[in-house]
């Protein structure tokens, strides 16, 4: 028997003002799958992720985490939620605390009060924190710095490191690449794809279909409905181009870099952007 999917949605409906924000979405993500969630703005990507991490209870339909419905008891439900790590678009780091305290905040679900309070006084778990920082290419000398002193790129990585400290089975990321310069976006994506490999899984929402390399599956969401659920490889052919065109129908394609890119070569665009912005990066 196959292991239960890490995340499963069945006919999930979320009502909104007027039109539903999600209309009967069903999907399952198994361990080892790295899934991109694609769609124009307002398609319901953020709503879907909010349902997936338990922030937003669906109006109808069912949600399963590792095969189990969200528990009634708050304590058990918190344990379930601790296995789902969300990378928020605004990162939601605690600016006033040090990097080490922020990383340890990822452990709050399992820590009791004594350790949670002690963390505000003493550097705890330095080894584990150093290890996760190394995985995101940062060094341990950042540990005692306040988050407010970090650069934009460092913050992104610290946020991912906090996610890793949480020890989740499923990684969710809500448009983590928006508002990043191309080189930074590419590096961050590589990092997330590496961390989302088996036994974890990754669900990442995206605005841009040019960054799909490395994903296993792509979901197309439009107006609260799943338009397609395809292997990433099949989107690169002409059939895939038709699917993408349907997904973004009516969108201004050449408005800005956030929309569907008009140019053929993303790599060259990225390269020129890098040379134009020598200060970019971490």
């Amino acid at each position, binding site marked *: 028997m196959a292991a239960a999917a890490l995340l499963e949605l069945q006919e999930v409906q979320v009502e909104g003002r007027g039109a539903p924000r999600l209309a009967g979405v069903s999907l399952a993500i198994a361990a080892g799958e790295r899934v991109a969630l694609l769609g124009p703005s307002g398609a319901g990507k953020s709503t879907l992720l909010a349902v997936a991490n338990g922030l937003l209870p669906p109006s109808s339909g069912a949600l399963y985490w590792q095969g189990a419905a969200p528990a009634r008891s708050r304590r058990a439900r918190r344990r379930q939620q601790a296995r789902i*790590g969300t990378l*928020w678009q605004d990162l*939601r780091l605690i*600016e006033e605390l040090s990097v080490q*305290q922020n990383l340890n905040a990822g452990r*709050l679900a399992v820590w009791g009060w004594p350790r*949670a309070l002690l963390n*505000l006084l003493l550097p705890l778990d330095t080894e584990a924190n150093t290890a996760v920082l190394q995985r995101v290419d940062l060094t341990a000398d950042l540990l*005692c710095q306040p988050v*407010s002193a970090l650069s934009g790129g460092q913050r992104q990585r610290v946020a991912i490191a906090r996610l890793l400290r949480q020890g989740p089975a499923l990684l969710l990321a809500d448009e983590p690449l928006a508002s990043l310069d191309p080189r930074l976006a590419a590096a961050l994506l590589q990092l997330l794809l590496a961390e989302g490999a088996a036994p974890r899984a990754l669900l990442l929402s995206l605005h841009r279909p040019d960054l799909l390399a490395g994903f296993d599956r792509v979901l197309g969401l439009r107006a609260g409905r799943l338009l397609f659920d395809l292997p990433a490889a099949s989107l690169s052919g002409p059939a895939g181009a038709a699917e993408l065109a349907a997904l973004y129908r009516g969108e201004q394609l050449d408005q800005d870099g956030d929309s569907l890119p008009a140019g053929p070569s993303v790599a060259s665009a990225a390269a020129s952007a890098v040379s134009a912005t020598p200060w970019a990066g971490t």
Partner: protein
Amino acid sequence: MGRYLSVQAATSAGPQAAGRRRPRPAAPLLVLMPALVLLPLSLLLPGLLHGGGLELIGRFLLAALTPSLDPLLLGSLLSGLAVTLGMALLGWATSLVLGVLLGVASARVVWRTLLGQAWPAGLVRRLLAVPRAIHELLWGLLLLQLVGLQPVVAVVAIAIPFGALVARVVADLLDGLDRSRLEALQSAGSPAPAALLTALGPPLLPGLLSYCGYRLECALRSATLLGVFGLGGLGTELRLTLQSLEFRELWSGLWVLLAVMLLLESLLGALRRRWLMPRRLSLSAGGVGRRGREMVIVVLALLPLCLLVARALGVDPRGLLQGQGLQAFAGAGPLWPGPALLSLPWPALIGGTLSLTLLAAALAVGLPPLQLLLAGRSRAARALVRLSWALARLWPPPLTALLLLLLLQPGVVTAALALGLHNAGILGRLLDEGLSDGGAERQQALACAGAGPRLALLYGRYPAIARPYLAYGAYRADVILRESVVVGLVGATGLGSQLLESLSSFAWDQLLALVLAYVALTLLGEELSDRARRRLLSSS
């Protein structure tokens, strides 16, 4: 002052010296640390119980649910309330006029523009420190002794220290304003007074209005407090019912007061939002004109209202110039140090006052965040905490002190409890306001990662609020030092008790020395709390 928190929360995160290894409590822990005072307190309290009074306290608590509805009583409560409201309004209005005038006179920018030098501002400022350092109760009792019981006493007692406080805030606001507009007007050749009014008047208005609203709340609290000490109004009724242990009648008065206080707070809050936060809709110029008209109408309506109230209460400033006390004072002979002064136990008095202040301040700052944390996500618990704050806020501390005397022995701890609980109510509301201004996302993120609701609150919300909250706490400690005279009637609490004693025995030389000691202590405390505040707000 309520809005201070939100403004400063945004600017509190600054760079920090990197690489510091010394264990240093982080922001959320700092907020909780004052609550540690509860530990020694819980050890001390059992020793202070005198055994009696439990049954009385039980009756007092039960009476909250069954206040007396006797129409005769309600009638006298309402007329007492009218007197208190009238005194508050008149004292407040007078203090505003005084405060704005003196504030302008102690602003450096004004003197520099008019005369080219700023030293007169410093002089006025220093002179104003004295009336500010003396609590309105002290002014009230002093005037009471000098000119006898008259309605005007309470009004003047409120107006003097409040006027000096408003003056300080106005001067700080004026000196903190951007001066480029003033310089532009001056270089264009407009005369200095006109330039001052045009360039600094409008930007001063929002801060001034917000602070004035807050002072009106304070004035109502002070007028009630003065009543407790016999200056008339609802406070007097409350004290009489408490002393005759008529708890049901006491609660009728307290609920009436609570209703009025909450009404006033929400009215002022609504006005503040309506007048001071127009940015969302500021595209239409008509909005500004409407606001301006409304403000002018309200200010114009205040003047006849004040005159009417003054007439109804029989407030007559000429009364201040007569009275036997004044003659007694004049005939009291030499005021300057006699042997009686040296016989006062100064170290014990000052030590008592300082420990009372510190204990009360730690309670006031430490309790609200702890209470919110304990309440967690439960709506009912949070509503209960808020109600307890509202009650503590409006409740004059000497009444709490008298109530505590039913259970506890008189002394510093009892007085500190009374004062601390009262101020916790004020700080609690501020904390609540500060928390509702933002930070929900981080709390949400932590909760989504499986942290419990209390830990999510501690880690998500408290860090941003910590420094502005503690900075306000430092300011509050300074207020508490001044207020410590208020709970002097509990006995054995240092300067306050001694002062009330000297006052009732007409020992003028002692009284003068004690007031001077209070002034010196308050000025020192003000300096210390200013420094603590600056440090808290500048570094992170």
